């Protein structure tokens, strides 16, 4: 029981980051029907910004806001340079475009920074823990979970209470009709990318604090987690994406601690098998989005 609770807490910490990433993926998918394989590039850029601040001898208090700004700007630039040209294209084109963006960004870092791993110091408190009864809770997880909850609440307020959020939801439901009402397509798509970048930036700060290093291909892992979580939750559903993030995080932690020693390294493999099973038995994901096929 104690172990399970411990797993849950650890899993929530991990899942919080996945949930933020997945929500960003789902928001962009909603307005553009684009599954963004370049979603991790915001974190790659953030990683190098962090590395740069570390070189200057500045602290995380400088790096963190810089990562946020960097993520939002990167997201907007990618939209402007690449995705704005393929709006309304086929899935195939959209997917490969985002894949191409990932490669161009990482190749640029490869070419102009370095192919090798760049490290920076983690904040001192990342490894600290404190005891709650029989449980050991990481300070880091506490911060992550708190931040994520606040961010998710904030995002929820933004989506439900502001005109922009409303426009975003309307455009995701029916883009043309939203335009008929006067919702500007550029505003809403760029806004979606900015919001998605912001969420990735927040997740990225914690991702980088834990990683303590970056490489040109650093975006792949967070991207994959975000995309898988969004898919587990049911593509197109924002709530599903958040739920998918937590499910994925908890599943990973539980499996890692329960699998026999010999194959603990294969957690990712087992998670994939579970996801594959989920798709076989519940192909629409956890939260299904009704979609009518017009004939």
């Amino acid at each position: 029981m104690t172990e399970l609770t411990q797993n849950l807490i650890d899993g929530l910490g991990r899942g919080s980051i996945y949930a933020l990433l997945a929500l960003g993926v789902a928001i962009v998918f909603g307005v553009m029907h684009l599954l963004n394989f370049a979603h991790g590039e915001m974190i790659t850029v953030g990683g190098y910004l962090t590395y740069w601040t570390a070189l200057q001898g500045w602290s995380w208090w400088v790096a963190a806001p810089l990562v946020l700004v960097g993520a939002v700007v990167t997201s907007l630039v990618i939209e402007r340079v690449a995705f704005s040209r393929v709006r309304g294209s086929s899935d195939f084109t959209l997917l490969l475009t985002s894949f191409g963006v990932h490669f161009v960004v990482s190749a640029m870092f490869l070419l102009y920074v370095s192919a090798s791993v760049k490290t920076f110091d983690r904040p001192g408190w990342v490894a600290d823990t404190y005891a709650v009864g029989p449980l050991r809770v990481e300070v880091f997880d506490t911060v992550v979970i708190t931040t994520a909850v606040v961010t998710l609440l904030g995002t929820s307020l933004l989506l439900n209470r502001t005109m922009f959020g409303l426009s975003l939801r309307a455009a995701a439901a029916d883009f043309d009709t939203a335009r008929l009402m006067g919702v500007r397509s550029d505003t809403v798509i760029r806004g979606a990318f900015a919001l998605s970048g912001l969420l990735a930036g927040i997740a990225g700060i914690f991702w980088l604090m834990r990683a303590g290093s970056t490489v040109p291909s650093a975006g792949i892992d967070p991207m994959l987690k975000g995309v898988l979580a969004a898919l587990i939750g049911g593509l197109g559903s924002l709530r599903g994406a958040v739920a998918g993030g937590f499910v994925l995080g908890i599943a990973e932690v539980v499996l890692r601690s329960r699998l026999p020693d010999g194959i603990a390294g294969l957690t990712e493999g087992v998670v994939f098998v579970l996801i594959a099973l989920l798709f076989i038995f519940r192909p629409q994901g956890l939260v299904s989005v009704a979609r009518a096929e017009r004939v």
Partner: protein
Amino acid sequence: MFPDRRRDVALPLLGAAVLWVVFVGGGLLYEMVAGGAAERLVTVMFIDAIVVLGIGIYVGNTGILSFGHIGFGSIAGYTFALFAIAPTEKLKRIPDAPFGLAEVSVGPWGAVVIAVLVTVAVAAVIGVGLARSGAESGAVAATVITLALLFVTHEVARNWPDLTGGERAGLFFTIGGALDSRIPVVVCLAGAVVVARLFATSRSGRLAIVAREDNLAARAMGVNPLVQQMIALLLSVAVVSIGASLRVYEDGSILPGNFFFSYTLLTLVMLIVGGRNSVTGAIVGVAVITAARELARRLGQDGFEVFGVGLDGPPLDWVFRENLQTVVLGVAMLGFMLWRPGGLLDDWELDRWLGRTRAGDAGDPPDDPAPQSPRDRVLVVRDVEVAFGGFRALDRAGIEATTSEVVGIIGPNGAGKTTLLNVVTGVVAPDSGTVILGDLDLTGRPPHHVARAGLVRTFQNLRLFSALTVRENVEGAALAARAGLRDRNDDRAVPGVDDLIVAAGLWEHADRRARELDYGNSRRLELARAAAAAPDFLFLDEPTSGMNDAESLAMVQQVRRMAALVGAGVVVIDHDLNFITSICDRVYCLDQGRVIAQGTPAEVKANPLVQRAYLGGAEPS
């Protein structure tokens, strides 16, 4: 008729042979000019070509983007290595390998066979998940699963050192030296070209392509895309497995990173730059990208002088740096997606070009074929209810039809005509009610099942296979028809494709793409395609919509002729009462989801309820 020996077998074989000779010859010629250093480059290019052709069998024919084929390659590569490496070597590197693999030795060619079998078995399992999620959530979900597969194989390879030697050690080996002859590679390449090209012209390949062009229309012709996609996947994985094994053999080693992102990027770029829908394109892409990458690598490494300007120093040294080839690949992928998503060749195929120059024009049309008499079958649709949200689209609607008559359904916009058709053909599941054909209960069955049972439809907003030619459109349906006739124990001859094209008045357009047709011809092609699926009942949704009066009247003859040719009854939805009057034996009028009148066309037209349904106005007294 399919298969046309010349067009579907002989010419593709000839085209494959020419492609192979030019490609292999070109590689060897380059090697002679460039010297021994190019030997490995050329060998690797041949192996890459096998892998790319393999990926193309799936991605090209089904239109589903897969990032996972290199993951399958990884599985094949490791399987190959585990079985091919001599036990003495394995005891040094992976003494604790599970399943007693450390002691096994089957020799390289046996290992290739095992690698293919193992990988295909894995693909079969994953294919089920791909098919199910793809059918539900679209191709995007399938693509993500393939991407996850790539990562998982990489993770497993890194984290199971007992089996794979782990991330750094990997598996190195000598089987009497690395691959020391190139003959196996070029032989396998020849095989890959032939298999890839012949699959695209095979029955299964054609049905996959048809479903790629329009999934719903394909299902409505009786094609089950999931089956064809599975066949394409297994075949494609087999070819990729052979390529991957050869790559490991050639390298003499395998590390987790060998079959990961960079190889996925490379092979995908090769595929899309040439044109993913074409075997010729795949080969061209491999050649172009190999050359571009080699050039970029050299530019990045040594620098070059062009017209006396040193590219290694200022002002251009910021471009020509190490790792330039990665940038080139990324930019190529992005650039082609943004500006030329079809690739250099799109779906241009060498053998079709060879065939066309020889055949000249279409030739004379065949004589008028004899009409067939229909089998007696009765369709009974009863008490169908459908609600969308709070909107009751159908309220206990029903129709009856026999194969010897033409039945019309009319009614104003929103009356539920198309919804009724969707229910009958399995596109929409009814909340209640039954659809019975003869002694078969078709209620709620999937569209391809309904089509095979003998109900085939057209679509109001035209769903042609737009990139395919007129003949390929009709042929696709005719191919699907065979399975349906077999299911029904119907020994009718499949309607001749040429006959149908002539009957539709499309003979001179037979080799044009469907998207190049004008509106009237597009409508006629939809009709011919539906007839080619050998139905007992043809369901036509607004066949004259957007036509002028003369065209509408011509359509009357067209529909009659087509139905007689295949021996089918007709159920037709239309708003054009004149068309309906001219063609129908009986007419139903729907309004607000209910049948408000039925009878002969004249009776229905004179019915005040009908006039009111169309024009509104006061309740008739």
